[in-house]
């Protein structure tokens, strides 16, 4: 393994942002306007630098990733593992041993997520280019958030996982709450309370699992031979196990978010500033589904098999309900562009849950692939909204029209993103959704058919929005030079910074649409192993 | 003394204690509240002394000395505080002391 200063790549990729944050905090923000602008620039470039190095490391990780190793419940086939005793007390008079390890590593499930995190957080930095208000605070919170997200995807110790999971709550609260829109306070605290509500139950389950196996090591928790007989979680298929799984599932489902825990998402998205919406949709939502794959599924296979049908139904309801809500924006809502995309996220994440519930290779691979694709596509959609919001200072779909002639490049990019979201063949979204359908069809043919309606609904609202914004007549006020007092705004095409943020995503979407194996190969081994493991241990329980 | 059964003392002490407690809770005049507190503590003293006498154990009687000393200290401090408050507000009725609300 390659190390730098004695620390492996995963440690660097996780804690580099903290380093950046400390540097930013040490740079004074300046007294006069010139000094302020100077240090703002510095903060920006430090953030770009840090996230770029992260991106380079993650590409390096993926290139050196050994596709043969499955990981999941086998600590020996995890890659880039780093392990150190963090809090390691043995021979305590009362508790016996307390083992909390600094234990990180990746397998085929987390590798795509690590890559996604670095891509999205690097590109979202460019979407943050216009942040002027307390730039120091913004970028330090931003970097702290990145550490939290990355930590969740690499942690292999439940305690460590939980610390990272909670670590990103506070920066997110401030990022929405300080730099957000009109109703930011409400959205920020709603996000905070919802996620905390979910995670405290995770805490209890974590403690119960600790009592069962005597350590916080995730692999121990997946090894049912290690469960102590006195633990309430002993015995496959017992009621406590079902309850514990349900508690975990709710914690993760809030994050996904699955209907009926989704109500924080539209508020958070609408109020958050563009880059934070991008991160929220691009990475944070995946933490929920990732948590299910990494923790809920392999630790409670019996409960997964028991609840399989219900999980699928939750996924299905999310798909249809999210799409209906998005469509309803035209009829009932304020026709808010961001809200539309927020609801489409609920719908798209529903595919992930459905695919995971199907317990087939296709469905599961499709689900993880969909996580990645949704991350890139929705990140792009939010950036697109941000571009137009920066110019027009409105997100109402009715305010636009006929922009196709005015902003041709923008129109082109947006069309690709929208078609990606609809699932047009040739773009990445198609592959993952198709795989989810295939997988679901094997297990729940009827659900697959109903989920198909989600695609149709999705196509209708996406095309509707596209038509609203780009075609038709250009309203008066978009024609003249920028003049906020008379509500006349300039409609320049995308500038360089925005292109830097958007074009890489276009390339990824098209490339993965043509060559999906680049990503599928990364995860297929792990996914197969996971399914096999869950099915096997789950069935043992049902005998 | 020995002709009167223990129960009588304890009953008297209980009655005194109840009177004292009710006085603290019901009365509004701070001075009377403190008098009620003294009645409570005296009921405790009575109980201790009767138990000590009845059981033939001196430690209860020792306790009484401490209770008496503490009661004196308590009312000294209480009266000082009432005085300080009276200078500000010209009242000794506890329900008129209401800057801080629940």
């Amino acid at each position, binding site marked *: 393994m390659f190390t730098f200063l004695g620390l492996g790549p995963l440690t660097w990729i996780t804690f580099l942002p903290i380093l950046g944050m400390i540097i930013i905090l040490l740079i004074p923000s300046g007294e006069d306007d010139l000094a302020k602008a100077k240090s703002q620039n510095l903060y920006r470039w430090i953030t770009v630098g840090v996230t770029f190095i992260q991106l380079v490391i993650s590409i390096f990780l993926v290139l050196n990733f050994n596709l043969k190793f499955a990981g999941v419940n086998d600590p020996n086939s995890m890659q880039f593992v780093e392990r150190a005793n963090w809090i390691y007390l043995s021979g305590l008079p009362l508790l016996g041993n307390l083992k909390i390890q600094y234990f990180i590593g990746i397998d085929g499930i987390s590798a795509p997520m690590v890559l996604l995190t670095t891509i999205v957080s690097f590109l979202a930095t460019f979407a943050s280019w216009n942040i002027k208000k307390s730039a120091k605070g913004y970028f330090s919170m931003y970097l702290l958030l990145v550490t939290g997200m990355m930590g969740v995807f690499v942690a292999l110790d439940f305690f460590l996982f939980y610390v990272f999971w909670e670590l990103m709550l506070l920066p997110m609260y401030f990022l929405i709450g300080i730099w957000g829109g009109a109703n930011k306070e409400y959205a920020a605290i709603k996000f905070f309370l919802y996620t905390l509500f979910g995670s405290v139950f995770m805490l209890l389950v974590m403690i119960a699992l600790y009592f069962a196996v005597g350590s916080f090591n995730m692999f121990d928790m997946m090894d049912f031979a290690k469960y102590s007989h006195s633990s309430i979680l002993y015995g496959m298929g017992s009621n406590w196990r079902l309850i514990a799984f349900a508690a975990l599932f709710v914690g993760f489902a809030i994050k996904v978010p699955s209907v009926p825990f989704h109500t924080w998402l539209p508020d958070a998205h609408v109020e958050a500033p563009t880059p934070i919406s991008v991160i929220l949709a691009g990475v944070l939502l995946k933490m929920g589904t990732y948590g299910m794959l990494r923790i809920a599924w392999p630790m409670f296979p019996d409960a997964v098999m028991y609840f399989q049908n219900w999980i699928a139904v939750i996924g299905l309801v999310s798909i249809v309900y999210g799409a209906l809500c998005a469509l309803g924006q035209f009829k009932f809502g304020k026709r808010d562009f961001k809200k539309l995309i927020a609801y489409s996220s609920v719908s798209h994440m529903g595919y992930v849950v459905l695919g995971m519930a199907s317990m087939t290779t296709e469905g599961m691979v499709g689900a993880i692939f969909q996580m990645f694709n949704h991350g890139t596509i929705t990140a792009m959609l939010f950036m697109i909204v941000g571009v137009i919001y920066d110019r027009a200072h409105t997100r109402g779909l009715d305010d636009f029209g006929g922009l196709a002639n005015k902003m041709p490049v923008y129109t082109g990019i947006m069309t690709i993103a929208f078609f990606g979201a609809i699932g047009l063949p040739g773009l990445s979204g198609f592959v993952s959704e198709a795989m989810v359908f295939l997988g679901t069809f094997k297990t729940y043919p009827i659900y697959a058919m109903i989920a198909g309606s989600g695609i149709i609904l999705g196509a209708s609202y996406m095309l509707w929005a596209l038509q609203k914004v780009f075609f038709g007549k250009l309203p008066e006020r978009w024609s003249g030079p920028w003049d906020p007092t008379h509500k006349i705004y300039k409609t320049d095409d995308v500038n360089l910074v925005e292109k830097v943020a958007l074009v890489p995503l276009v390339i990824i979407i098209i490339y993965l649409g043509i060559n999906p194996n680049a990503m599928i190969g990364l995860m297929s081994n792990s996914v197969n192993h996971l399914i096999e493991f869950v099915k096997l241990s789950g069935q043992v329980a049902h005998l | 003394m020995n002709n009167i059964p223990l129960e009588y003392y304890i009953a008297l002490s209980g009655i005194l204690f109840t009177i004292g407690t009710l006085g603290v809770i019901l009365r509004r005049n701070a001075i009377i509240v403190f008098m009620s507190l003294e009645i*409570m503590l005296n009921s405790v003293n009575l109980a201790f002394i009767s*138990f000590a006498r009845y059981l033939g154990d001196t430690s209860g009687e020792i306790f009484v000395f401490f209770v008496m000393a*503490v009661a004196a200290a308590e009312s000294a401090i209480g009266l000082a505080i009432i005085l300080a408050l009276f200078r500000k507000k010209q009242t000794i009725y506890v329900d008129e002391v209401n800057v801080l609300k629940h």
Partner: protein
Amino acid sequence: MTITQSYLNNLMASVGYFAPEIAIVVTFIVAILFDLMFKKSKNIAAYISIIGLIITGFILSGNIGISKSLFDGLIVVDPYSTFFKFLFLITTILIMVMSLSYKELYDNNRKVGEYYSMLVGITFGMFLLASAVNLITIYLSIEILSLSSYVLAGYTKEIRRASEASLKYVIYGSLSSGIMVYGMSLLYGATMTLDVAKINVAILSGHVELFPIIIGGLMILVGFGYKMSAVPFHYWTPDVYEGAPITITSYLSVASKAAGFAVFIRFFKDLYLLPATSDINIWNTISNFHWQTIVAVLSVLTMTVGNFVALWQENVKRLLAYSSIAHAGYILMAVVVMTNVGITSILLYFVFYMIMNLGAFFVAQLFANKIGSDDLKDYIGLGYRSPVLAVLMTVFLISLTGLPPTAGFIGKFYIFTAVLDKGFVWLAVIGVLNSVVSLFYYAKIFRNMFLRSVADDTKNNFKFSAPAFPLSIAYVLAFATILFGLYFSPILNWAENSVTMFK
């Protein structure tokens, strides 16, 4: 000859272990005398008290690991009490240091000598309380603690809310201690002894009336519950906390509460909960009288009432007062299980709670020095006017909420561990739900500081920070809050070793 001789021998043997308390008394006297002699230097009593308490700390470190009964069983020295004594010492020293920079206290050219000597007096009371194993010492030390607290709560006596707080405190306090001492008399009447261990023996012997023991225990619980400010004995808390000088508020919320818990745990563990395996008939009768249920109900009530009432507080001091009630509820959860793991988690929690709660109150005090208010609405925009203090405050609040990576999380984590260890799942669920609720009102403080801002042209919009010395204290507390969130092994080890004498 023999009785006097053996008594003297015992006395001589005990005095050595009693040295920390003696040092405190000496400090107390010297502080008062020097304050009288050197009228010109205002803070002489403060400096003497701080130095005296530090010396006490060194003397106390000689008692580490020692388990001994002193003065014919009036008090004991054991790791458990030593742990709490260190906690009291550190808290008192910190409070004294904080008081040095407290503007309200030094207003009107007030004499502060008694203020610091009273703090020393409280420390003495708490030291005794942590060691007390006899009803007389328990009562006396509670009274020493209370009497000094009454005075300190009203120390800034020309401020009306302070005198009012003091009056309420003294009435409620005397009432509850009166009830407690009546309970003690019942206990004494039933068992013929004032020694807690002998009371236990008497109960185990099976020749005692049960009724007075149970009623007496409940009445004593009132006295302890008052010190712990557990619902429903919490009435005084918000008023006193809001009215008292903020340093005293933070002191009461940490040290006095810890002292209450220290004696509560020892008393009930020794008296009613030992040993669980005993098959003596009478014992089962007492065990069937569900102490655990009572404490569990108290705990749930305490945290729920504390948290929910805190939701609509508009004054930061009052809000933190209710939050401290809620924290007493969390700690009571661990009392319910009464296992050694539970007691360990309580000790651990108190260390962390001391750091974060003192920190929060201290920053509130530094704010009050500058903006002259504790109202939540005056906190608007403080994040931009005084970023450093506001960030420190946020760290403490996050820790009080119990989010990683702060000490508060570790504390809660341990309490839940102890509770789940004994299978009280419902209690743990209520506990975690309560901490979600608590987030809402803690967030109100940092929402006002950061999410809202005042218009630039307001005359109150000056920027400020704190003087270097108080600021560095706040930094140290914040650093400790985060450090113990990431690495807590030494404290855990220490706490674990401090409860081993409980069987």
